[in-house]
């Protein structure tokens, strides 16, 4: 894998955000807020952490990434395209009749492992993959991205128990802790707090990180799978809508598509951050 500098990755995040808005605008649909909150996480995963590429995607020892918060598929498409899994022009078909690039991940798209989109599935799937890896003494690691509103799905906690029971230290969950779901603040809808203590009580390593700090994400995501005997969750503190000031921290942007004017302003704001 090409080794990027921190500032190169930071620039990539801005380019990803620009591409993301472009394709959401073109498709006329997308989960804008929750896409933007995990751009930096996906950037670091795919450019600095995951041993996965178009060349080794069918190698049984590749690292696995399962996106449990499947609705943020647009950013996954953007990152996979940039990593060469398919031509970027494919993204012009997002949401179009007969296009495989639909509003949630499917295996029809190269680079995607599982068809997600119903919340609360990724952790169990990832645990199964990690368990197979343990039994086979395989070198791969399994990463899964979960939304914080998604924590209300009880299936997560079934899987959390199992992953700790089987000491799945090859499993790393990342929580996109943007504090918002559709209806409002997660603390107000049906609070999952205290999140860290819950995972600790379930037998997990818990690491809290700034989910937009490339330096920290690189360090934390690369080091976490060296921890032994327990699965790890990284509670990544993020901002929903991150990168476009008027989209930040505003539930309305969960799945809003920018108007022409909003789009222009957003692009301008992002472009000023490019070196």
């Amino acid at each position, binding site marked *: 894998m090409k080794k990027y500098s921190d500032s190169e990755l930071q620039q990539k995040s801005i380019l990803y955000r620009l591409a993301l808005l472009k394709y959401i605008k073109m498709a006329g649909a997308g989960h804008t807020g929750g896409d933007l909150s995990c751009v930096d996480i996906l950037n670091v995963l795919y450019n600095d952490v995951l041993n996965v590429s178009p060349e080794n995607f069918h190698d*049984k020892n590749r690292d696995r990434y399962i996106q449990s918060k499947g609705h943020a598929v647009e950013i996954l498409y953007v990152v996979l395209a940039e990593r060469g899994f398919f031509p970027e022009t494919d993204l012009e078909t997002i949401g179009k009749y007969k296009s495989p690039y639909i509003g949630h991940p*499917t*295996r029809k798209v190269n680079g995607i*492992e*599982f*068809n*997600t*989109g*119903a919340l609360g*599935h990724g*952790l*169990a*799937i*990832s*645990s*199964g*993959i*990690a*368990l*197979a*890896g343990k*039994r*086979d003494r*395989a070198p791969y690691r399994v990463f899964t991205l979960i939304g914080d509103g998604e924590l209300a799905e*009880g*299936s997560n906690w*079934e*899987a959390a*128990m*199992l992953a700790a*029971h089987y000491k799945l230290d090859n499993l790393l969950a990342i929580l996109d802790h943007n504090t918002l779901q559709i209806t409002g603040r997660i603390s107000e809808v049906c609070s999952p707090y205290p999140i860290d203590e819950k995972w600790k009580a379930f037998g997990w390593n818990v690491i809290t990180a700034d989910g937009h700090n490339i330096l920290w994400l690189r360090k934390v995501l690369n080091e976490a799978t060296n921890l032994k005997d327990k699965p790890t969750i990284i509670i990544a503190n993020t901002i929903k809508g991150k990168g476009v000031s008027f989209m930040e921290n505003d539930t309305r942007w969960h799945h809003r598509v920018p108007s022409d004017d909003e789009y222009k302003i957003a692009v301008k704001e992002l472009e000023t951050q490019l070196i």
Partner: protein
Amino acid sequence: MNITDQIIEGKANLEIFCDTLIDLARKDSTIIAVTSDSRGSSRLIPFAEKYPEQIVEVGIAEQNIVGVAAGLASTGKKVFVSSPGCFLSTRSLEQIKNDVAYSDYPVNLVGISSGVSYGALGTTHHSLHDVAALRAIHNITIVVPADNFETRETIKTAAISNKPFYIRFGKKKMPHLHSGSDTFGIGKASTILEGNDVAIIACGETVFPAVEAAKILYNKGISTRVLSMHTIKPLDNISILKAAKECKAIIVVEEHSINGGLGEACATIILEAGLPVPFKRMGIPEEDTVTGSQMEVFNHYGISASGLCNEAEKLLRKV
């Protein structure tokens, strides 16, 4: 078989499941059994003792068992999930739909103690809805084997298939309905008895009462075709239409709600082909299911030799 053959009791299909899995695991280390506090009721203890590295226990968590199984299958494991049909089929329906069928990983879901096998334990433990639920899900084969032979063949086929399966059977010992020379194919009904007056299309534990009914009808001069329609999806349309053309009446009998099961599936095929044959669905009706043992529930709803004879004669009077 022949109508005059003595019927010999075999083992419980559960035991055949375990024996077959042991046979397969001997040559294949990728075979994995997954249980949800159900290895005892699945009769998988001998398997667990022989191949401890090839069994995964998830605890009482049916959503999890299917998600985890899908993850295991995605790495190339040949996964058999074994858990009571009532819980496995629908507590985890969304996992079956998305993680297994839609994601297209070859998980084999084995619904044990299905139908009304649990008898007086009641409706919480009955699975009279599993086939209906799964029939509406694309990319899963549904098999309800009748005897030991059909069970063994189904498990062997599922193990080498790269597609998802739901395999459903009960608890009790099953009579042998096949002879040594019989062949088996998923999606191809087994003709248990030949006949041209009435056809009884059955699956799983209802095939035996159909055979018993055929014997009584035989003594009354009525010839009965008994089909074991073990594969409910994909359905053997050819055998169904052949029966509808060659026989004067059709009964479909299943250990399932009459809503959404094999009966409705057969009716659809026959109706769409425009065949005007007297037809009756038998199974568990739309009501609070009567309490009692499996046999008592069967008898109550006419899933018995006498119940099926009565229906056959009623239908034939209409001809």
